[in-house]
């Protein structure tokens, strides 16, 4: 039971700096997900919290204690690895009880703790098996069981679901969320999958190239992305981005082919005439007439030539072109769409975004 605080942590390998002074405060019981493309420093950050990597500079506190120089065993953390790292020469029960055995706890206590963890994760029938005899999902559960047995202050997950197939991943995602509700512990979870991040996190921390790009609740980062990177990284399909300029009267956005669109009302104070911007909107806000949601106060209409459609059942993702750039739209209550068909679409301008073309930062 503890908070985790990172201040200005830096990691260098030789001359290459991979984590550039990250600050992050994680509250007690919070579920924080570090998400970003591979090589963004998220796993390195997690491993520094675990004590598996040394800090080049900066401080890490777990609870009140500065843990920079503590070995992993003294930090009272648990970690679930991407490849599970179960001990192949031990049975499931021995795997689960290993940390308590190392701590020289009495046999009875170990048995009780193992039984408890096995019950939480329904591993009861597997206790005498070896890891080699388990399926991927079962190994995953054993790895989680091994982590909860010792009642750690902080749980660390390093891409724990990336080795599972899609169906099992969705199932384990729910189990992890339930587990967090049940055991109430601070969790730091690393993933490159934005869906996992959105569904699990109390707070998402989006990283790129060793920096934190944005942090906030899943809905905050979805609705108010701080820059174009976050806008395209969070949400599926990614946000459509079109280069544009602000017109002379600062009331319109002009796309590359000259199409004028009204500047969203809430953004009007943030733009200047002639400014180069990137106009962004989500597929969910561009929908064919009669196949959309209730629109906001400000709308624009397009004729969209459909190049490709992906029917998903409840909705269909449409691929078309605006101003020569490929964009995606969504169709609710879908009907069959044929290629080359032109659909009249409505864009909800009140939910659109503008980013500065130079800094890529949000103007909202």
């Amino acid at each position, binding site marked *: 039971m503890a908070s985790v605080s990172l201040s200005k942590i830096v990691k260098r390998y030789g001359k290459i700096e991979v984590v550039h002074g990250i600050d992050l405060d994680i509250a007690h019981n919070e579920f924080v997900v570090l998400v970003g493309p591979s090589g963004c420093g998220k796993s390195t950050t997690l491993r520094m919290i*675990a004590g598996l990597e040394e800090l080049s500079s900066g401080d890490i506190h777990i609870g009140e204690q500065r843990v920079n120089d503590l070995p992993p*065993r003294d930090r009272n953390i*648990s970690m679930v690895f*991407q490849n599970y790292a179960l001990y192949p020469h031990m049975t499931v029960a021995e795997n689960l009880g290993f940390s308590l055995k190392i701590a020289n706890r009495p046999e009875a206590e170990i048995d009780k703790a193992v039984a408890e963890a096995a019950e939480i994760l329904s591993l009861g029938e597997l206790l005498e098996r070896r890891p080699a005899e388990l399926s991927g999902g079962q*190994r995953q559960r054993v790895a989680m069981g*091994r982590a909860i047995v010792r009642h750690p202050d902080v749980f660390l997950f390093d891409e724990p679901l990336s080795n599972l197939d899609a169906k099992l991943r969705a199932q384990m995602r729910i189990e992890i969320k339930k587990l967090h509700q049940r055991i109430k512990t601070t969790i730091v979870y690393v993933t490159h999958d934005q869906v996992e991040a959105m569904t699990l996190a109390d707070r998402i921390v989006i990283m790129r190239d060793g920096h934190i790009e944005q942090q906030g609740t899943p809905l905050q980062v979805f609705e108010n992305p701080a820059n174009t990177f976050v806008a395209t990284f969070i949400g599926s399909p990614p946000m459509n981005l079109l280069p544009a300029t602000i017109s002379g009267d600062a009331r319109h956005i002009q796309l590359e082919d000259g199409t004028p669109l009204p500047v969203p009302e809430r953004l009007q104070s943030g733009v200047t005439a002639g400014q180069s911007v990137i106009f962004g909107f989500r597929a969910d806000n561009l929908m064919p007439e009669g196949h959309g949601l209730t629109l906001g106060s400000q709308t624009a209409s397009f004729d969209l030539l459909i190049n490709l459609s992906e029917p998903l059942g409840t909705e269909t993702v449409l691929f078309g072109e605006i101003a020569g750039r490929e964009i995606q739209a969504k169709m609710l209550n879908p009907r069959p769409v044929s290629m080359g068909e032109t659909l009249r679409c409505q864009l909800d301008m009140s939910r659109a975004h503008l980013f500065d073309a130079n800094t890529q930062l949000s103007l909202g």
Partner: protein
Amino acid sequence: MDINQQHRFRKYGLKLAHFLALFIAMSIICLPGLWVVLNSFRPTVEIMAKPPVWIPEKLSLDHYRAMFGAVGEGGVPVVRYFMNSLVISITSTVIAILIGIAGGYAFARYRFRGKSAIFVGFMVTRAVPGVALSLPLFIVFAKVGIIDTHFGLILAYVAMNVPFSIWLIDGFFRQVPRELAEAAEIDGCTRWQAFWKVEFPVAKAGIASAAIFAFLTSWNEYALASQLTRSVFSKTMPVGLLDFTSEFTINWGGMCALAVLMIIPALILTFIVQKHLISGLTFGGIKG
């Protein structure tokens, strides 16, 4: 003939060819060994007969009786040689494997200056034939005064086995994912405990096979032993085989009998460890 049948015939044909090839290969490998065993049980006349007698007419333990008999009547100090071989082989294997574990682990897990150069250097030492080393070693050992001692031969065998053991064990530790030790450290182990409680047991099968190699190398080695040992105090069994040669004759039967005694412990050891190798470990701790 329809196409299915054709395929079936081809499959059987291939299988037959496969078995035949295996049989020939195994015959080439095993026949000399069988011949040695057979010869140890039959009279010298039959061994020397031309054309060879393939099916022995009469088997006896005469050669064994003579070998364990008095020195004048064709006997050799078998027990003594056996003990020498055992002491020297086991001691040198244990030392070589301990060094091999430490070295192999270091090569598998740590980065240090000149790592690959040292590694290549180890391999190069293996390229030098034992015979070529025997004279220089003899001179050095003679000066130091460790000719004809267990210690001298153990030293030579440790030096011979360490590079190969490190190379083999390095490979096995590489197969043990780093995360296992990391998980153990997070579970409360020190670095040392993580090694002995997790990494070592997982790589144990590989280490055992390295030990067999080291033991058999020492047990069978002749070129060095023949130079570095002089008397019954340190002669090993391979050198002891020479006791059956005299100026004009070679006692083939006796030699074969001693050779059989030499093979037996090696066989037993291999069987024991092999069982352990197969039964024990399947790497399942990580995503399969």
